[in-house]
C-alpha cells in the first residue's frame, strides 16, 4: 500500500509544502498561515508505529526546513516528535475517522507553535507572546478540520485493513 512507502510520504509532503507556500498565503494573512505539513504528518502517523511516525515526521520537518532556509532542524525536531507521539497515542486510544484525528491534530498544531516559540526565545529571537497567541485559533481550527479531511482525501487506512483487502 502506497501510504506506507517513504517515497509516497515525500510526495505528500512536497504537495503539502507547495500548497502551504503558494496557495494558503492567498487565503491567510502573513504570519497566520496554518501548518499543513504538520497536519499531513499527524494524519500519516495515525497508521504507523512510533519509530516510523518519528521517521516520517523527520522527513517532513527536514523538507520544511530546507524550503524555509532558516534554523534548519527546528521543524525536523518538532515534526518528528509530533509523528512519534501521535503514533504512540493512536495505539492506545479508540478512534474514529474524523473527530479524534481532528482533536489530536489541533492539539499537535497548538503544541508545535508553543514549542517553536520557546525554541526561538531560547535562540535569542525576542518574539512577544501576542504573536504566539494570535494565530493559535487559526492553527487549531485548521488542524481540527483538515486532519480528518486529509485522511479521507488520501484514503489512508490501517495496515490490517490493507492486508485484509490484499488477501481477498
Amino acid at each position, binding site marked *: 500500500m502506497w501510504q506506507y512507502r517513504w517515497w509516497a510520504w515525500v510526495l505528500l509532503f512536497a504537495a503539502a509544502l507547495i500548497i502551504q507556500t*503558494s496557495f494558503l498565503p492567498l487565503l491567510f494573512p502573513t504570519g497566520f498561515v496554518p501548518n499543513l505539513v504538520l497536519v499531513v504528518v499527524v494524519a500519516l502517523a495515525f497508521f504507523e508505529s512510533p519509530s516510523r511516525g518519528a521517521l516520517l515526521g523527520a522527513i517532513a520537518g527536514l523538507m520544511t526546513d530546507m*524550503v524555509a532556509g*532558516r534554523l534548519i532542524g527546528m521543524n525536523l525536531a518538532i515534526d518528528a516528535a509530533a509523528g512519534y507521539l501521535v503514533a504512540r497515542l493512536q495505539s492506545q486510544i479508540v478512534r474514529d475517522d474524523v473527530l479524534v484525528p481532528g482533536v489530536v491534530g489541533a492539539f499537535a498544531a497548538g503544541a508545535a507553535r508553543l514549542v517553536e516559540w520557546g525554541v526561538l526565545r531560547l535562540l535569542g529571537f525576542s518574539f512577544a507572546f501576542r504573536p504566539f497567541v494570535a494565530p493559535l485559533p487559526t492553527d487549531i481550527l485548521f488542524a481540527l478540520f483538515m486532519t480528518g479531511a486529509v485522511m479521507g482525501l488520501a484514503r489512508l487506512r490501517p495496515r490490517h485493513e490493507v492486508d485484509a483487502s490484499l488477501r481477498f
Partner: protein
Amino acid sequence: MDFLYRWRRPIIAVLAVMVLATLLSYTAKLRGHVLTLSAVAGMVASPIGGTIVQVSGGVRGDAQSLTQLFHLQQENQKLKSELTLYHSLKLQLEEVQADNTRLRGLLYLKSQLGSWHLLGASVVARNPNNWFSTLTIGRGSQSGIKVNMPVIVPQGVVGRVVSVSPTTAQVLLLLDPASGAGALDVRSRSAGVVVGRDPITGTLRFELFGHRPNVLPGDAVVTSGLSQYYPKGLLLGQVIRVAPSSGGLTETATVKPAVNFNQLETVMVVLSHPVGESTPPLSGLVP
C-alpha cells in the same frame, strides 16, 4: 271536445298571437311599469349573472396568469443566467482593473526612476515558517539578480534579495526580525535603523540614534542611504508611536510599513541605480 282537440294547435297559435299582440300594445304605452319589472328581474338575475361573469372572467384571468407564470418562469431563468454571467464578468473586470492599477503603478515607478535599472518579478511562494518573513520571486541569477539587491514596489521598500538560484530568488522582507535598513525621519532628519519585529504585529521598530530625536507620530520614514543595501529616499513607512528606549537614552518609534505585505503579487528588483542620487519618497507615485 273532439273539435277542440282536433284544432288545438291553430287555436293555441291564434291565442298566443292574440296574447302577444295585447302585451305588445299594452307595454308600448306603460314603459315605466315594464322598466320596474325589468329592474326587479335584473335584480334577481344580476347576482347570478355577475357571478357567472366573475367566474368566467376569473377563469380566463387564471388561464392568462398561468400562461404568464410560465413565461415569467422562463424569463426569470433567463435573467438569472444573465445575472450570473454579469456577476462573473464583473469579477473578471475587477480583477483586470486591480491588475491594471498594479501594473500601471509599476510602470509609473519605472518611468519615475528613469535612470534606475529595475526588473519586475512575480511572487511565487512564501516561507513555510510563520516566524520568518521571506518570499520567493520567479526571477533569478539568469535575469541578473544578485544577493543584496533591494526589492521595491510603488508604495515603498519590500526588502532585499538574500539568496539566488538560476530561476528564483529569496527576498527577506522588512518585517523579518533579521532585516535592517538605515532610516531617516523626513521631517526632523533624525537617523536610525528600522528593523522588523514579527509578521503578526506587522510593524517595524525604528531605533533612533540621537539623544532627543524629535520624531513624532505621522512622520514619514525613508531609507537614509547609510546602509549598504538600500539607496537613499525610498519610503519605509509612517511613525505611529514613539516611546523611550529601554535604556532611556534615546527613543524607539513604531513604524507602520508603507507596503501591504499580504498583497504582494509583483515586485521590482533594483538591478542598479545611480550612486549618490536621492529619489523622492515613493508613496503616492501610483497615478
